[in-house]
């Protein structure tokens, strides 16, 4: 960004328009490359969604191309750790590469779980490149419906 001198007096609309034009032209000149590095956009910790439902939390994590056996979900205290490695796709040495955006390497993500989660009942599964972790809440914190008998 250029530093533009602050002009106090006189506002020239024609000049302003010209400046806008220059600015836009500069935007086009920028060597715009998509900075996205796939779903591992966030350096080495994959993006995550956590949804709270009545009796459980669901954590979802996009891990495209990651083999199920290369993912390690563990819990220590109330800290859930998703760890794993994404392997580089194989191609021959003489391949002519046109675009390379896929990321490979190891990643890790930790989540502090609320106390209401029962660490013994956590389940995880991988489908279509998405890791889904079910975090059930403890029995005592689940909302309970008590039926009242009216006599």
């Amino acid at each position: 960004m250029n530093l533009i001198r602050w002009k106090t007096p006189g506002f020239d609309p024609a000049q302003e328009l010209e400046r806008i034009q220059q600015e836009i032209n500069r935007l086009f000149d920028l060597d715009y490359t998509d900075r996205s590095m796939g779903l591992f956009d966030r350096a080495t910790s994959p993006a995550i969604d956590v949804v709270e439902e009545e009796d459980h939390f669901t954590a979802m994590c996009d891990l495209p191309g990651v083999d199920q056996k290369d993912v390690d979900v563990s819990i220590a205290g109330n800290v859930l750790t998703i760890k794993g490695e994404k392997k580089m796709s194989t191609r021959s040495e003489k391949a002519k590469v046109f675009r390379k955006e896929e990321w490979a390497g190891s990643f890790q993500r930790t989540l502090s779980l609320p106390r209401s989660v029962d660490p013994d009942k956590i389940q995880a599964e991988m489908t279509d490149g998405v890791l889904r972790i079910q975090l059930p809440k403890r029995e005592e914190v689940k909302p309970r419906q008590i039926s009242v008998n009216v006599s």
Partner: protein
Amino acid sequence: MATTSKELEARRTVRPVGNIWEEDGTVMLRLEMPGVSKNDIDLRVENDQLIVRGTRQVEDENKSYVIRERARGDFAQTYTLDDTIDRERIEAKMERGILTVTLHLKDAVKPRKIEVKAR
């Protein structure tokens, strides 16, 4: 699925990221599409265009999100095929959220070795 094509048109799409390379007479596309199952892939060739679309299962927007970082939207991208690609031989495979498309080069453009005969 109960979504009409019009609804699909209106949905937000993102370009899937991936690798594209040429090797052994084929052009390979490897596109990251997490959350898209094999049945939700729409891959077609129209004229000179290869159209890729992956529909993601829509999560309920009204759920209470504690953390929300994942990108939303369907995956869509159109690639222009040139004359070297054999339109009749396109293979695709969906595995662990990655779509792999194999485009074969026409035999006519593949490098061919001509033997020199000695007399």
